[in-house]
């Protein structure tokens, strides 16, 4: 059997997702087949666009802290991610 590296287990709106150590939240979600997790002002779905922290399309709430760029933040084991709607006056 090949050596199996330990995974990073996070939850996204309560659903467990597993990634590799050092991966960003965005990479874990995309690898799991999920391409959108935020909404624009009209409610249209959004996910990663620029991938390097410039566009702010991929914001999520991590362990209660809002407005974290999922493309930059490396996931820690046990992180609880919640998706955040875009309401008027907030990013």
């Amino acid at each position, binding site marked *: 059997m090949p050596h199996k590296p330990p995974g990073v287990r996070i939850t996204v709106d309560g659903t467990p997702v597993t990634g590799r150590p050092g991966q960003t939240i965005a*990479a874990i979600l995309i690898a799991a087949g999920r391409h959108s997790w935020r909404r*624009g002002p009209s409610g249209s779905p*959004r996910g*990663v*666009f620029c*991938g390097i922290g410039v566009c702010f399309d991929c914001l999520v709430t991590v362990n209660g802290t809002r407005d*974290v760029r999922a493309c*930059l933040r*490396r996931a820690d084991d046990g992180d609880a991610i919640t998706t955040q709607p875009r309401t008027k006056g907030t*990013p």
Partner: protein
Amino acid sequence: MTRHVVVIGAGPAGLGAATAAVRAGARVTLLDSADQAGGQYHRMPPDAYEARRPFRICESERCDWWPGAAVWALERRDSGPPRVHVVRGPDADGDGRRRCVLRADALVLAPGAHDRVLPFPGWELPGVVTAGAAQVLAKGERVAVGGRVLVAGTGPFLLPVAASLLDVGAHVLGVLEAGTAGALLRGWTRRPWELTGQAGKGAELAAYAARLARGRVPYRTGRGVVEARGDGRVEEVVTARLRGDWSVVPGSEQVLTVDALCVTHGFTPRLELPVAAGCALLDGFVAVDEDQATSVPGVYAAGEVTGIAGAPAARAEGVVAGWTAGGGTPGRLGATRRRRDEGRAFASRLAAAHPIGRRWAGWLRPDTIVCRCEETDYGTLRDAAASRLDARAVRLGTRAGLGPCQARICGPTLAELLDTNPHHRPIAWPIRLGELANPPAEPKEGT
């Protein structure tokens, strides 16, 4: 007293600057908002980075390497370079970041560039990403952005991105270069003597082209994506033949089924910090002299902010900037300066080979989103522009460019449509109110 040089940005230019400033005898603080040095060009997975520790300057006793350090403001002073306001933290955008203020004898700005993407109908759909995003996911995370992927836009960056996608197992349906074959040939073959110092760059591109050939990925010129469609994510794209001015040849449209589309139309220099420092611009880039000095005393600039020329030229610019900023003997580094000048010639050649066609806005429809953050559409902007209000009134009225990204993505497009300065931002990066309320730390000598 030892000079203290602060270098902002640890890509090829910033690494070159830090190395040269240390060699010139200075003490350096090297900052990057990422947790790895190397910038986008040297991006690698964290385990590979930890194993290789690839950049020796980051281990140097005379260089304080600050990963995860976001510069949120530059505070101008009457004399000397601006003070550098930083938030540092273990986690990107996390709680518990600390504020610090850095005072320097000289500042080197090497913030780099990000993809420019022109809007088209459906570009806001999930699965439509910048070429840079696809590259970072592939090289830094070993993740393919999709299974059936098209790479489109203009510029040599299309090639490494497609190659990286192949390396992580994506099926790359093709690479579409919007520029016509004629424009490419004219740009690349004109003044061939300028290419002598850039042989490495040419070989690198040839290797990518060979990789695409092995993967049977077609490369087509004079063709672009003019629409993305899908229900909740991109499912198909419409491509069309483009004339030299990027107007669509009627009847040439084709529909392709994809689950991801990677787009780039060149690069936008990250000018917010140079503008905040008060640096004069020239043709959309930071104006620098022979020593990479900007118009602001004690402030130097290097890399893509002075012109899009690729990693070798950026590194050479960084070395010249860091040497001068660090108090090195003036006039040295002849070979490096030649490499830099060849790199700049290469940059103007690239720009000539991959211009943005004047008629690209013909792809847009009235309901096409231009500002992704505020979902301001083209029709609204066109009406506002026609109303002859000043640019500020147009932006406040339409909210274009006023969302979370602060016009980083749509800024160049708005500038074209509304004639505005896209780079002025009083706060360079968002900072949390709690962080602002905490008193900043003032690092002492040697910390």
